[in-house]
Structure formats: C-alpha cells, structure tokens
C-alpha cells in the first residue's frame, strides 16, 4: 500500500487525463447540443416550430367563402355543399392572400369523372356513371351545375 502511494505520480497523470477528458466532453456538449434539447423530451424543442413554419398551399374553404359568398349560396342544399373548394379548383392559398394572383386553370381530367366514373370498389350508394352510356360523351356541365349538381343549368 505504501509503495503504491510513493510511486503514485503515474496515477495522478492518469487522473489528470481523465479529468481533462471529462471537461472536454462537457465543453463540447455545451457547444454541440442546442440549449432547447430536452425541454419537452428527448428531442430539440425548436423542431416543433420548424415543422410549423412550412408554406401553406391550400388556403381552406373558409378563406374562399370570405369573398365568394355567392358560391356558398349556390351550394346550399346541394350534395356538393360539403365538398371543399380546392378539391376541384386546386391549391389557392396565394390567391386567397392576394386576390390579384390569378387562380390556376381547372384541370379537366381532375373534375367530375375523378369521383363519378363508375369503378368497381366505389361504395354502391355513391353516385357513379359510365360517361358513354350516361351522356354519350356530352360534357357534364351542359346539364349539371358543378356547385349544385341536382339543379340543371350552368355554373
């Protein structure tokens, strides 16, 4: 035991190295780990804000109807009353923010038949048609109003 202490300088060197290593770990950790890591759990709290700050592309039906109340009236009592505008009209947040930005043109292939072409698998009670048989190729809008399909006429 005594001998160990007499020749103990090598132990001191090891201890010093250890202490320096631990100190370096904490300094590096302080620099590398953001201060908000662990505020709510094992993650960086700022990631919540990062996820929340992406750009919005679909403005939402409320934004549309703020200006287009006539469409809200036209939809009343229709089976399309709960279909939200951008489902057919496409993403319009930019137009909702600034009415000067022209809405994109409607994509014809994404209109009526997207939902109403008869396909095996669609729920039986959902209205579906075979366009050839139903109208012989005549455009849907020559008979139906998209905002209120039960009524005849345009728009």
């Amino acid at each position: 035991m005594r001998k160990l202490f007499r020749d103990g300088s090598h132990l001191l060197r090891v201890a010093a190295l250890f202490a320096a290593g631990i100190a370096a770990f904490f300094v590096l950790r302080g620099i590398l780990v953001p201060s908000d890591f662990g505020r709510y759990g094992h993650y960086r709290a700022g990631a919540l804000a990062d996820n929340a700050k992406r750009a919005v592309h679909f403005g939402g039906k409320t934004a549309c109807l703020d200006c287009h109340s006539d469409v809200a009236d036209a939809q009343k009592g229709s089976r399309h009353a709960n279909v939200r505008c951008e489902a057919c009209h496409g993403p319009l947040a930019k137009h909702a923010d600034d009415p000067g930005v022209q809405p994109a043109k409607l994509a014809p292939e994404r209109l009526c038949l997207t939902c109403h072409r008869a396909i095996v698998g669609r729920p039986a009670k959902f209205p579906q048609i075979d366009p050839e048989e139903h109208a012989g190729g005549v455009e849907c809008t020559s008979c139906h109003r998209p905002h209120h399909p039960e009524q005849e006429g345009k728009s």
Partner: protein
Amino acid sequence: MTVDRRAFFATAGKYLIVTAATAKVIETFLAGATPEPAAYAAADHWWAMVLDIEKCIGCGNCVRACKAENDVPLEAEYFRTWVERYHVRGEDMEHPDVDSPNGGYDGFPDKYPKGDGARTFFVPKLCNHCAHSPCVQVCPVGATFVSPDGVVLVDKSYCLGCRYCVQACPYGCRFIDPRTHTVDKCNLCYHRITKGLLPACVENCPTGSRMIGDLRNPNDPIHAFLREHKVQVLKPQMATGSKAFYNGLDGSVR
C-alpha cells in the same frame, strides 16, 4: 427631505410601469381592438385521424393534395399518404389482391369485372401517429419524436438518414427524401393544424372519408364518431398506440 437614490429609482420605475400599462389599455380601447387570439398551445391538443373506408371512393384527391402541400417528390416511391385498393375474393380473406398504382395519385383504373363475387374497397393510409411509436424508440439521436400535441414529427436538422425508423415502422410510412437524404413522412400537416387549418388531405377529401380530431377537446365531433362506430386500428397486435382510427376495416386489411 432627502430622497435616497435607490428609493427614488424604485418608485419612479413603478410609476413608469403603471403609466405604460394604462396607456396600453387606453390605446386598446380607443382602437376598439379585440385582444389577440391565444397562440397555439400544443399541450391543449391531442390529434388523431379518422378514416372512413365506407366513404372512400378512391379518387386520389388526398394523395395529390398531400404531395402538393408538402413538397413530396412526385416519383412513385415517395408518399406521405397513399390509397390502396383491396379485392377480396369470397372467403379467402388472407390473400386479398392489393393494388395502389402510383399510390392512387392518378386515381384507380377499373381493373376488376363487375359482379365477380369479390369485395372491393379502398383504404387510405398514412402515418398513424402512434402514441408508443416504434420509430421514435429506435431513433438514436432524437430526430423523431412525439410532440406534446400527439403528432409524430421529424427534426430534419437532426436526422442522420440512418433508416432505423424506416425499418421500425410496421406500417411502411417512412421514406428517405432523395434530395435531403433525411427521413420524411406525414406530419399531419403540422404547419396547418397549428394555424387552425385542416390537413391538406382532409381539406381535399370530397366525401368526408378523412377527418381529423382533437381528443383533448371534448366538443370535437371525433368523440361522437368513435362512440357511434366500430372503429379499428391497423395491426392492433403491435400495440403501437395508433391514432388513425378506421371505420369499416376488415380482417383482410394489413
């Protein structure tokens, strides 16, 4: 009378604060301003999804909306949400034919004949925002986590792209973004729900097959829906605490 400097500043400070507050109140009243709406408090919410298979028509609106809203690569391997078509022949529940051409992005071709005795239906899928998610458990760096409002999020700046979570998710909900080499998946449109908007897929589903609900809000219609329908989660045996509730799910769906 001598005034101690310290006491003077303390008193003056108090008067200044009171005056400023009064001015603010008067200003608010004069402007007729309504107080700012309370900022989004994550801990007040606990988000869940309801997917009603009986209403899904396989139109693919949700898939297209999701890619447009979240800047998801357009190639066929990358989806935050997608729609599958199940074709179950007679009693053979264990071997359904499942197809999902381009995830349903372009809708579904009429592939199956009418009246062949099979049952065909559409199943929209997305991250289930599991409360005990395997993906969170395996992430070595804390880049994927459950938020205080119950959304499983990815911290893009922390993700190493190690793919552990891609392997761990029993539902195949995650992919590696080829542009950033970090993981990506549905975040329930966190940038929308924190602003009071609906997720893009819910906003654009024409049949109301997709609904989002706040389980911590007793007035949310989701409570009535869960009470009145026989809902199920995917792979309940995995006990992931899935918060995507399906109405009309049957045993053939994996």
